[in-house]
């Protein structure tokens, strides 16, 4: 099944994500302005900043849920172009977790997890189910496997969404505000799952307002405002001595 036309993700490439001179417009509105970012393998990045600053849009460019007008994005050695083969190859290699979970409501938890392994990786059903149960155990909800998503709490649904993404054995995980839609009591269970994942060494990019999480796991924190990357720093410096005026203002608002 090695089709020479289909680009293969290179999991040993030094750079997991490389973004050069990225610009994006929504109509007249310049949402992403001159984004340059390289993420090395195994790095854990947290992206924070005020709403409407372009954080989610940037994250969604990495698996091409959003397109852009200028600049280039290379993920695990595959350049994202308009070629659907490149796009699918990147998406197989990059897992994503959404704010609204986006589980498939007509499928059971187990079927949610096995769908892509069976129909994208062509895995036999039995193997896919074993794999899914392994990841569901890892996010600590194997007993919910036969239920439909609507019967689960928000925190449980988000953990299923994480398991579903992990079932594709991604090299990179994207998290788009994974705890913003959760009741306060459920935030911790999801963050704990993510911390565990971070400790396993997977490359992670997380858009989040959870500053405690950022402090605990991030290798670097990116602060975005108004479509630009304003500051990138390691957590210690970022919280103790933010360099940019805008960052200081933001941190004053969120850390009270």
């Amino acid at each position: 099944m090695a089709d020479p036309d289909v680009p293969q993700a290179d999991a040993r490439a030094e750079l997991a994500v490389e973004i050069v001179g990225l610009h994006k417009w929504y109509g007249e509105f310049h949402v992403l302005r001159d984004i340059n970012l390289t993420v090395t393998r195994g790095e854990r990045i947290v992206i924070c900043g005020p709403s409407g600053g372009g954080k989610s849009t940037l994250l969604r460019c990495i698996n091409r849920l959003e397109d852009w007008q200028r600049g280039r994005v290379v993920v695990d050695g595959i350049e994202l172009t308009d070629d659907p083969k490149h796009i699918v190859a990147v998406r197989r290699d990059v897992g994503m977790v959404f704010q609204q979970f986006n589980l498939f409501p007509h499928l059971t938890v187990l079927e949610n997890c096995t769908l892509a392994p069976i129909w994208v990786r062509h895995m036999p059903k039995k193997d896919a189910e074993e794999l899914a149960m392994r990841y569901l155990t890892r996010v600590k909800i194997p007993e919910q496997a036969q239920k439909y998503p609507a019967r689960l709490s928000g925190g449980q649904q988000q953990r299923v969404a994480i398991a579903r993404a992990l079932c594709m054995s991604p090299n990179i995980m994207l998290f788009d505000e994974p705890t913003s839609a959760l009741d306060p009591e459920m935030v911790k269970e999801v963050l704990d799952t993510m911390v565990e994942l971070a400790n396993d060494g997977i490359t992670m990019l997380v858009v989040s307002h959870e500053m405690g999480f950022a402090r605990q796991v991030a290798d670097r924190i990116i602060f975005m405002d108004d479509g630009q990357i304003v500051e990138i720093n390691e957590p210690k410096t970022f919280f103790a001595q933010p360099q940019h005026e805008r960052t200081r203002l933001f941190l004053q608002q969120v850390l009270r």
Partner: protein
Amino acid sequence: MAIPAEQTYLRTVPAERLPPPAERAGALGWLRKNLFSSPGNIALTFVCVVFLAWTVPPVLRFFIFNAVWSGTDREACLASPANRDPGACWAFVRVWFSYFVYGFYPIVERWRVDVFFLTLAFGIGWLAWLSAPRRDLGAVYFFVVLPVLSYMLLSGAPRLGLIDIPTALWGGILVTIVVATVGIAVSLPLGILLALARRSDMPAVRVFAVTFIEFVRGVPLITVLFMASVMLPLFVPERLSPDKLLRALIGVALFASAYMAEVVRGGLAAVPRGQYEAAQSLGLPYWRMMAFVILPQALRVTLPNIVNTFIGLFKDTTLVFIVGIFDFLGTIEAARADPRWATPITSVTGYAFATLFYFICCYGMSRYARNVEIRLARAHRR
């Protein structure tokens, strides 16, 4: 400022969990609550009872108690000293029944139509029974095996010893069922394709779908049928021109597809964007995303509308009569003109029979759809 002690509270004993209070039980309680709760309600109940008393007995008298159940010609259904006020002339329906079912299909070959009905019922049953085994095979049977089998059975396969029966001899319920089944079986998949095409990113595909849908929807079905049966032969040489029934089938199927496309599009629009994004982010290519994630949800949302379109299509099949094809209603029209059965009530009886047939079929579809809806809702919510 200190809050007064009576405004703070600390629970010390948990509140007991109680069963809900009992309704006023029994039939009497139900009556009082639903039929006699207020003066207006009492008046409405009274009006309804009077209306039923006024309409139901005459209807029963006409269709059952005074009806004529057997006889060989019009004499049986005319007023006579024995039956001064004859009701429905079911004897007429009994005598003509096989014509209503088969049309002019040769009598010795009618077993082929019966086999067709059985194989079709088997296919519908297989697909309609949601927990039936191997429904994927059922779909193959219904959409591949059944059409080929039916064609050989009904139209003929000389090599297998089934003589050719020209479609001009087909008629009655046979034709109605063939037109409706082909219309339904073609319009759903074709409608889905058109709906997807209409939402496609590719301009050429989108323009084609929009043009087709808007054109077909902007024209009455009768016009489509006339074009298929009268105008097509003018432009196509006689020997290349397809069979009359086939032309009508194509017309009905394309017409229904355009309507189905709009129904399915409504369902597609109801699926949240996040579902597309989640499927894409897992690397599912377009067709697999549609087949496993989007369409199952879209069709579920729009199931009542789909069945509504099916029911409309089923009744629209009567229009093929206009282009000279003897569907069920057509055979009734022909039979009621028979002078041997010329009585004042022959036509009424014939139409009543047609009404009964169409109602049973359409109400059956409607009930089935309702059951599926309830079942799906129960399975996927709580």
